[in-house]
Protein backbone atom coordinates (compact mmCIF):
# COMPACT_ATOMS: atom_id res chain seq x y z
CA UNK A 1 0.00 0.00 0.00
CA UNK A 2 1.42 3.39 -0.95
CA UNK A 3 1.93 6.18 1.58
CA UNK A 4 -0.91 8.18 0.06
CA UNK A 5 -3.45 5.35 0.15
CA UNK A 6 -2.34 4.52 3.69
CA UNK A 7 -3.06 8.12 4.64
CA UNK A 8 -6.46 7.88 2.95
CA UNK A 9 -7.33 4.70 4.87
CA UNK A 10 -6.15 6.31 8.09
CA UNK A 11 -8.28 9.38 7.33
CA UNK A 12 -11.39 7.30 6.71
CA UNK A 13 -10.76 5.36 9.92
CA UNK A 14 -10.37 8.61 11.82
CA UNK A 15 -13.64 9.97 10.42
CA UNK A 16 -15.45 6.75 11.33
CA UNK A 17 -13.93 6.87 14.82
CA UNK A 18 -14.87 10.48 15.35
CA UNK A 19 -18.40 9.82 14.12
CA UNK A 20 -18.71 6.97 16.62
CA UNK A 21 -17.32 9.13 19.41
CA UNK A 22 -19.74 11.89 18.56
CA UNK A 23 -22.56 9.38 18.95
CA UNK A 24 -23.61 9.67 15.34
CA UNK A 25 -26.09 7.05 14.28
CA UNK A 26 -23.68 5.47 11.84
CA UNK A 27 -25.12 2.06 12.68
CA UNK A 28 -27.98 2.73 10.33
CA UNK A 29 -29.33 0.73 7.47
CA UNK A 30 -26.51 1.80 5.20
CA UNK A 31 -24.71 -1.46 5.92
CA UNK A 32 -26.19 -3.96 3.56
CA UNK A 33 -24.87 -7.02 5.26
CA UNK A 34 -26.04 -7.88 8.76
CA UNK A 35 -22.66 -9.05 9.85
CA UNK A 36 -21.06 -5.65 9.36
CA UNK A 37 -23.97 -3.98 11.10
CA UNK A 38 -23.72 -6.53 13.91
CA UNK A 39 -20.02 -5.79 14.26
CA UNK A 40 -20.70 -2.07 14.56
CA UNK A 41 -23.32 -2.75 17.25
CA UNK A 42 -20.87 -5.01 19.03
CA UNK A 43 -18.25 -2.26 19.08
CA UNK A 44 -20.80 0.27 20.37
CA UNK A 45 -22.50 -1.81 23.05
CA UNK A 46 -20.44 -4.88 23.96
CA UNK A 47 -16.74 -4.46 23.25
CA UNK A 48 -16.09 -2.01 26.07
CA UNK A 49 -16.86 -4.65 28.71
CA UNK A 50 -16.15 -7.89 26.84
CA UNK A 51 -12.86 -6.81 25.31
CA UNK A 52 -11.66 -4.43 28.02
CA UNK A 53 -10.00 -5.15 31.36
CA UNK A 54 -11.73 -3.82 34.43
CA UNK A 55 -10.25 -5.18 37.66
CA UNK A 56 -12.78 -3.16 39.67
CA UNK A 57 -15.70 -5.25 38.39
CA UNK A 58 -17.17 -8.01 40.54
CA UNK A 59 -16.85 -10.59 37.79
CA UNK A 60 -14.73 -10.04 34.69
CA UNK A 61 -17.01 -10.09 31.63
CA UNK A 62 -16.10 -13.16 29.53
CA UNK A 63 -14.33 -12.80 26.19
CA UNK A 64 -16.72 -13.77 23.43
CA UNK A 65 -14.31 -15.29 20.91
CA UNK A 66 -15.57 -18.72 19.84
CA UNK A 67 -18.87 -18.16 21.68
CA UNK A 68 -20.83 -20.50 19.42
CA UNK A 69 -18.00 -22.98 18.96
CA UNK A 70 -18.56 -24.30 22.45
CA UNK A 71 -21.70 -26.31 23.31
CA UNK A 72 -22.41 -24.02 26.26
CA UNK A 73 -22.21 -20.29 26.91
CA UNK A 74 -19.85 -18.95 29.63
CA UNK A 75 -22.78 -19.06 32.07
CA UNK A 76 -23.45 -22.74 31.36
CA UNK A 77 -26.62 -22.39 29.25
CA UNK A 78 -26.69 -24.05 25.81
CA UNK A 79 -25.01 -22.00 23.09
CA UNK A 80 -28.08 -21.31 20.99
CA UNK A 81 -29.30 -18.19 19.20
CA UNK A 82 -32.33 -18.07 21.49
CA UNK A 83 -30.20 -18.21 24.63
CA UNK A 84 -27.81 -15.50 23.43
CA UNK A 85 -30.79 -13.30 22.47
CA UNK A 86 -32.26 -13.82 25.94
CA UNK A 87 -28.95 -12.91 27.59
CA UNK A 88 -28.62 -9.71 25.56
CA UNK A 89 -32.18 -8.59 26.27
CA UNK A 90 -32.54 -9.67 29.90
CA UNK A 91 -28.92 -9.50 31.03
CA UNK A 92 -27.31 -12.22 33.08
CA UNK A 93 -25.61 -11.96 36.47
CA UNK A 94 -23.86 -8.60 36.54
CA UNK A 95 -24.30 -8.09 32.78
CA UNK A 96 -26.90 -5.35 32.28
CA UNK A 97 -30.10 -5.95 30.31
CA UNK A 98 -30.28 -4.28 26.91
CA UNK A 99 -34.06 -4.44 27.07
CA UNK A 100 -35.73 -1.53 25.21
CA UNK A 101 -32.34 -0.28 24.06
CA UNK A 102 -31.76 -2.58 21.12
CA UNK A 103 -34.35 -3.35 18.46
CA UNK A 104 -35.21 -6.88 17.34
CA UNK A 105 -33.13 -6.28 14.22
CA UNK A 106 -30.21 -5.04 16.33
CA UNK A 107 -30.27 -8.22 18.41
CA UNK A 108 -30.58 -10.38 15.27
CA UNK A 109 -27.57 -8.71 13.69
CA UNK A 110 -25.57 -8.90 16.90
CA UNK A 111 -26.19 -12.63 17.20
CA UNK A 112 -25.22 -13.08 13.55
CA UNK A 113 -21.96 -11.27 14.22
CA UNK A 114 -21.30 -13.21 17.44
CA UNK A 115 -21.63 -16.41 15.40
CA UNK A 116 -18.67 -15.32 13.28
CA UNK A 117 -16.30 -14.88 16.24
CA UNK A 118 -13.51 -17.45 16.26
Amino acid at each position, binding site marked *: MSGRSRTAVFGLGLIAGLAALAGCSWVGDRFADHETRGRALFVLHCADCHEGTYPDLRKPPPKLGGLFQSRTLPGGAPATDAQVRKTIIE*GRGTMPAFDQRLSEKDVDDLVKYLRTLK
Partner: protein
Amino acid sequence: MHLRKLKLTSAIVLFVVSFVMVAASQTKSKRYNLRGEVLGKDPATNEIKVKHGDIAGFMPAMTMSFKVKNPRLVQELQPGDKIAAELVVAGDDYWLENVRITDQSGRRTAKAPASPHLLAVGEPVPRLPLTNQDGKTFRLSDFKGKAVLVTFIYTRCPMPTFCPRLSSQFARIHDALKKTPDYYRKTHLLTISFDPKYDKPPVLRKYGLAYLDNDPSGFAHWDFASTTPGDLRQLANAFGLEYIEEDNQISHTMNIVLIAPDGTVARYWSTKWTAAELENALREQATKVGTGSAEAAGRKDRR
Protein backbone atom coordinates in the same frame (compact mmCIF):
# COMPACT_ATOMS: atom_id res chain seq x y z
CA MET B 1 10.75 9.44 1.51
CA HIS B 2 7.58 11.49 1.82
CA LEU B 3 6.53 9.39 4.82
CA ARG B 4 9.93 9.81 6.46
CA LYS B 5 9.68 13.59 6.10
CA LEU B 6 6.19 13.48 7.62
CA LYS B 7 7.46 11.44 10.58
CA LEU B 8 10.30 13.89 11.14
CA THR B 9 7.93 16.86 11.02
CA SER B 10 5.54 15.12 13.44
CA ALA B 11 8.40 14.42 15.82
CA ILE B 12 9.49 18.06 15.74
CA VAL B 13 5.92 19.28 16.30
CA LEU B 14 5.50 16.83 19.20
CA PHE B 15 8.78 17.97 20.71
CA VAL B 16 7.83 21.64 20.47
CA VAL B 17 4.33 20.99 21.90
CA SER B 18 5.82 18.97 24.78
CA PHE B 19 8.34 21.73 25.44
CA VAL B 20 5.63 24.39 25.49
CA MET B 21 3.45 22.23 27.79
CA VAL B 22 6.30 21.57 30.20
CA ALA B 23 7.27 25.22 30.14
CA ALA B 24 3.65 26.21 30.78
CA SER B 25 3.32 23.76 33.67
CA GLN B 26 6.38 25.26 35.30
CA THR B 27 5.05 28.79 35.03
CA LYS B 28 4.53 30.52 38.34
CA SER B 29 0.94 31.02 39.41
CA LYS B 30 -0.71 34.30 38.50
CA ARG B 31 -3.37 36.13 40.48
CA TYR B 32 -6.26 38.13 39.13
CA ASN B 33 -8.98 40.09 40.91
CA LEU B 34 -12.46 38.73 40.37
CA ARG B 35 -15.81 40.25 41.30
CA GLY B 36 -19.11 38.54 40.70
CA GLU B 37 -22.30 36.97 41.96
CA VAL B 38 -22.64 33.41 43.28
CA LEU B 39 -25.27 31.51 41.28
CA GLY B 40 -24.85 28.10 42.86
CA LYS B 41 -22.51 25.80 44.75
CA ASP B 42 -21.53 22.16 44.99
CA PRO B 43 -20.18 21.24 48.45
CA ALA B 44 -19.22 17.78 47.13
CA THR B 45 -16.56 19.28 44.86
CA ASN B 46 -15.98 22.59 46.68
CA GLU B 47 -17.04 24.48 43.58
CA ILE B 48 -19.13 27.60 43.19
CA LYS B 49 -20.74 28.89 40.04
CA VAL B 50 -20.02 32.59 39.59
CA LYS B 51 -21.32 35.16 37.15
CA HIS B 52 -18.27 37.37 37.05
CA GLY B 53 -17.28 40.62 35.39
CA ASP B 54 -14.24 41.17 33.17
CA ILE B 55 -11.09 39.75 34.70
CA ALA B 56 -8.51 42.27 33.55
CA GLY B 57 -5.72 40.64 31.60
CA PHE B 58 -7.27 37.15 31.70
CA MET B 59 -10.84 36.68 30.49
CA PRO B 60 -14.02 38.57 29.66
CA ALA B 61 -17.18 38.53 31.79
CA MET B 62 -18.89 35.13 31.87
CA THR B 63 -20.52 32.52 34.11
CA MET B 64 -18.40 29.55 35.14
CA SER B 65 -17.55 27.25 38.04
CA PHE B 66 -14.51 27.74 40.23
CA LYS B 67 -12.98 25.54 42.88
CA VAL B 68 -12.62 27.24 46.26
CA LYS B 69 -9.64 26.19 48.35
CA ASN B 70 -11.43 26.57 51.68
CA PRO B 71 -14.44 24.14 51.95
CA ARG B 72 -15.89 26.06 54.90
CA LEU B 73 -16.26 29.10 52.68
CA VAL B 74 -18.36 27.08 50.23
CA GLN B 75 -20.78 26.32 53.06
CA GLU B 76 -20.97 30.02 53.98
CA LEU B 77 -21.56 31.27 50.47
CA GLN B 78 -25.13 31.35 49.22
CA PRO B 79 -26.61 31.98 45.78
CA GLY B 80 -27.15 35.70 45.34
CA ASP B 81 -24.05 36.71 47.36
CA LYS B 82 -21.83 39.28 45.68
CA ILE B 83 -18.19 38.35 46.12
CA ALA B 84 -14.68 39.61 45.56
CA ALA B 85 -11.90 37.06 45.28
CA GLU B 86 -8.50 36.30 43.87
CA LEU B 87 -8.42 33.95 40.91
CA VAL B 88 -5.21 31.93 41.04
CA VAL B 89 -4.06 30.40 37.76
CA ALA B 90 -1.21 27.87 37.79
CA GLY B 91 -0.66 26.09 34.50
CA ASP B 92 -3.92 24.31 33.64
CA ASP B 93 -5.25 24.57 37.17
CA TYR B 94 -7.18 27.51 38.61
CA TRP B 95 -9.08 28.24 41.81
CA LEU B 96 -10.36 31.04 44.03
CA GLU B 97 -8.65 32.32 47.16
CA ASN B 98 -9.41 35.12 49.62
CA VAL B 99 -13.12 35.00 48.81
CA ARG B 100 -15.00 37.81 50.57
CA ILE B 101 -18.75 38.41 50.56
CA THR B 102 -19.18 42.06 49.64
CA ASP B 103 -22.98 42.12 49.63
CA GLN B 104 -25.43 39.62 51.12
CA SER B 105 -28.58 41.58 50.36
CA GLY B 106 -29.11 39.61 47.15
CA ARG B 107 -29.65 36.36 49.07
CA ARG B 108 -33.33 37.11 49.39
CA THR B 109 -33.76 37.73 45.69
CA ALA B 110 -31.64 34.81 44.55
CA LYS B 111 -33.47 31.95 42.93
CA ALA B 112 -34.72 29.70 45.70
CA PRO B 113 -32.92 26.36 45.79
CA ALA B 114 -34.96 23.32 44.91
CA SER B 115 -36.54 21.61 47.85
CA PRO B 116 -34.84 19.91 49.54
CA HIS B 117 -31.67 21.83 48.77
CA LEU B 118 -28.23 20.30 48.26
CA LEU B 119 -27.40 19.09 51.74
CA ALA B 120 -24.24 20.29 53.41
CA VAL B 121 -22.27 18.03 55.71
CA GLY B 122 -24.08 17.90 59.05
CA GLU B 123 -27.58 18.42 57.66
CA PRO B 124 -30.23 15.73 58.27
CA VAL B 125 -31.17 13.46 55.38
CA PRO B 126 -34.67 13.76 53.88
CA ARG B 127 -37.52 11.55 55.06
CA LEU B 128 -38.59 10.58 51.55
CA PRO B 129 -40.10 7.11 51.09
CA LEU B 130 -38.19 4.45 49.16
CA THR B 131 -39.25 0.97 48.07
CA ASN B 132 -36.71 -1.82 48.27
CA GLN B 133 -36.15 -5.03 46.29
CA ASP B 134 -38.82 -6.81 48.34
CA GLY B 135 -41.41 -4.10 47.79
CA LYS B 136 -41.07 -2.82 51.37
CA THR B 137 -41.30 0.92 51.95
CA PHE B 138 -38.80 2.67 54.20
CA ARG B 139 -37.17 6.06 54.69
CA LEU B 140 -33.54 7.12 54.88
CA SER B 141 -34.23 8.41 58.38
CA ASP B 142 -35.15 4.83 59.43
CA PHE B 143 -31.44 4.04 59.50
CA LYS B 144 -30.74 6.28 62.49
CA GLY B 145 -28.36 4.39 64.72
CA LYS B 146 -26.34 3.01 61.82
CA ALA B 147 -23.68 4.39 59.51
CA VAL B 148 -25.05 4.17 55.97
CA LEU B 149 -23.26 4.32 52.64
CA VAL B 150 -25.58 5.36 49.81
CA THR B 151 -25.05 5.38 46.07
CA PHE B 152 -27.13 5.78 42.92
CA ILE B 153 -27.25 3.54 39.86
CA TYR B 154 -29.52 2.23 37.14
CA THR B 155 -29.53 -1.49 36.51
CA ARG B 156 -29.21 -1.23 32.71
CA CYS B 157 -26.08 0.96 32.90
CA PRO B 158 -23.65 -0.45 30.30
CA MET B 159 -20.64 1.67 31.31
CA PRO B 160 -18.15 -0.54 33.19
CA THR B 161 -16.58 2.41 34.97
CA PHE B 162 -19.90 3.76 36.24
CA CYS B 163 -22.77 1.75 37.81
CA PRO B 164 -21.18 -1.72 37.43
CA ARG B 165 -18.05 -0.38 39.14
CA LEU B 166 -20.08 1.25 41.92
CA SER B 167 -22.04 -1.93 42.63
CA SER B 168 -18.92 -4.11 42.36
CA GLN B 169 -17.06 -1.95 44.87
CA PHE B 170 -20.07 -1.85 47.20
CA ALA B 171 -20.09 -5.66 47.00
CA ARG B 172 -16.43 -5.65 48.01
CA ILE B 173 -17.26 -3.42 51.00
CA HIS B 174 -20.20 -5.69 51.90
CA ASP B 175 -17.92 -8.76 51.85
CA ALA B 176 -15.31 -7.04 54.01
CA LEU B 177 -17.84 -5.84 56.59
CA LYS B 178 -19.40 -9.28 56.80
CA LYS B 179 -16.14 -10.57 58.26
CA THR B 180 -16.46 -8.23 61.24
CA PRO B 181 -19.95 -8.82 62.71
CA ASP B 182 -19.78 -5.82 65.04
CA TYR B 183 -19.28 -3.42 62.12
CA TYR B 184 -21.71 -5.36 59.94
CA ARG B 185 -24.40 -4.77 62.58
CA LYS B 186 -23.62 -1.05 62.82
CA THR B 187 -23.54 -0.30 59.12
CA HIS B 188 -25.82 -0.48 56.11
CA LEU B 189 -25.43 -0.16 52.36
CA LEU B 190 -28.08 1.38 50.15
CA THR B 191 -28.17 1.50 46.35
CA ILE B 192 -30.87 3.74 44.89
CA SER B 193 -31.94 3.52 41.26
CA PHE B 194 -32.55 6.67 39.22
CA ASP B 195 -34.51 4.66 36.65
CA PRO B 196 -37.75 4.14 38.60
CA LYS B 197 -39.77 3.31 35.48
CA TYR B 198 -37.67 0.23 34.73
CA ASP B 199 -36.04 -0.66 38.05
CA LYS B 200 -39.07 -2.08 39.85
CA PRO B 201 -38.55 -4.34 42.91
CA PRO B 202 -38.16 -7.63 40.95
CA VAL B 203 -35.54 -6.02 38.67
CA LEU B 204 -33.71 -4.60 41.67
CA ARG B 205 -33.85 -7.97 43.43
CA LYS B 206 -32.32 -9.74 40.46
CA TYR B 207 -29.66 -7.03 40.16
CA GLY B 208 -28.87 -7.14 43.89
CA LEU B 209 -28.58 -10.93 43.95
CA ALA B 210 -25.94 -10.79 41.21
CA TYR B 211 -23.77 -8.65 43.49
CA LEU B 212 -24.60 -10.69 46.60
CA ASP B 213 -23.48 -13.98 45.05
CA ASN B 214 -27.15 -15.06 44.96
CA ASP B 215 -27.42 -14.96 48.76
CA PRO B 216 -30.67 -13.12 49.62
CA SER B 217 -29.67 -12.86 53.29
CA GLY B 218 -27.34 -10.06 52.14
CA PHE B 219 -30.37 -7.82 51.56
CA ALA B 220 -30.61 -7.40 55.36
CA HIS B 221 -27.40 -5.33 55.10
CA TRP B 222 -27.66 -3.95 51.57
CA ASP B 223 -30.89 -2.59 50.12
CA PHE B 224 -31.54 -1.89 46.47
CA ALA B 225 -34.29 0.70 46.27
CA SER B 226 -36.28 2.90 43.98
CA THR B 227 -38.83 5.65 44.44
CA THR B 228 -41.30 7.79 42.52
CA PRO B 229 -39.88 10.10 39.82
CA GLY B 230 -40.91 13.14 41.90
CA ASP B 231 -39.28 11.94 45.11
CA LEU B 232 -36.23 10.84 43.13
CA ARG B 233 -35.81 14.37 41.83
CA GLN B 234 -35.92 15.66 45.41
CA LEU B 235 -33.39 13.05 46.55
CA ALA B 236 -31.15 14.00 43.62
CA ASN B 237 -31.35 17.67 44.59
CA ALA B 238 -30.54 16.77 48.18
CA PHE B 239 -27.43 14.74 47.28
CA GLY B 240 -26.21 16.53 44.15
CA LEU B 241 -27.07 13.70 41.75
CA GLU B 242 -27.64 14.72 38.14
CA TYR B 243 -29.27 12.42 35.59
CA ILE B 244 -30.81 12.87 32.17
CA GLU B 245 -32.67 10.14 30.29
CA GLU B 246 -32.23 9.93 26.54
CA ASP B 247 -33.29 6.98 24.37
CA ASN B 248 -33.41 4.53 27.29
CA GLN B 249 -29.90 5.47 28.33
CA ILE B 250 -29.25 7.68 31.32
CA SER B 251 -26.37 10.12 31.52
CA HIS B 252 -25.54 10.62 35.15
CA THR B 253 -23.01 11.68 37.74
CA MET B 254 -21.45 9.28 40.25
CA ASN B 255 -22.46 10.12 43.80
CA ILE B 256 -21.70 8.39 47.06
CA VAL B 257 -23.00 9.73 50.34
CA LEU B 258 -22.02 8.64 53.83
CA ILE B 259 -24.79 9.13 56.40
CA ALA B 260 -23.73 9.34 60.03
CA PRO B 261 -25.54 7.29 62.71
CA ASP B 262 -27.36 10.48 63.79
CA GLY B 263 -29.03 10.67 60.36
CA THR B 264 -26.97 13.57 59.00
CA VAL B 265 -24.74 13.79 55.92
CA ALA B 266 -21.16 12.91 56.94
CA ARG B 267 -19.35 13.00 53.61
CA TYR B 268 -19.66 12.98 49.81
CA TRP B 269 -17.59 11.37 47.06
CA SER B 270 -17.98 11.68 43.31
CA THR B 271 -15.33 10.21 41.02
CA LYS B 272 -12.16 9.83 43.09
CA TRP B 273 -12.50 7.09 45.68
CA THR B 274 -11.53 3.52 46.39
CA ALA B 275 -13.53 0.77 48.09
CA ALA B 276 -10.96 0.79 50.93
CA GLU B 277 -11.43 4.52 51.46
CA LEU B 278 -15.22 4.18 51.55
CA GLU B 279 -15.05 1.20 53.87
CA ASN B 280 -12.71 2.98 56.28
CA ALA B 281 -14.95 6.06 56.39
CA LEU B 282 -17.99 3.83 56.99
CA ARG B 283 -16.21 1.97 59.80
CA GLU B 284 -15.12 5.27 61.34
CA GLN B 285 -18.74 6.45 61.45
CA ALA B 286 -19.79 3.05 62.82
CA THR B 287 -17.51 3.52 65.81
CA LYS B 288 -19.81 6.38 66.82
CA VAL B 289 -22.70 3.98 67.14
CA GLY B 290 -23.52 3.40 70.79
CA THR B 291 -24.62 0.10 72.22
CA GLY B 292 -27.87 1.57 73.52
CA SER B 293 -31.33 2.00 72.13
CA ALA B 294 -30.50 4.23 69.17
CA GLU B 295 -28.96 1.32 67.37
CA ALA B 296 -31.78 -1.03 68.27
CA ALA B 297 -34.25 1.53 67.03
CA GLY B 298 -32.66 1.38 63.61
CA ARG B 299 -33.28 -0.99 60.81
CA LYS B 300 -34.38 -3.99 62.89
CA ASP B 301 -37.84 -2.49 63.39
CA ARG B 302 -38.88 -2.97 59.80
CA ARG B 303 -37.62 -6.50 59.31
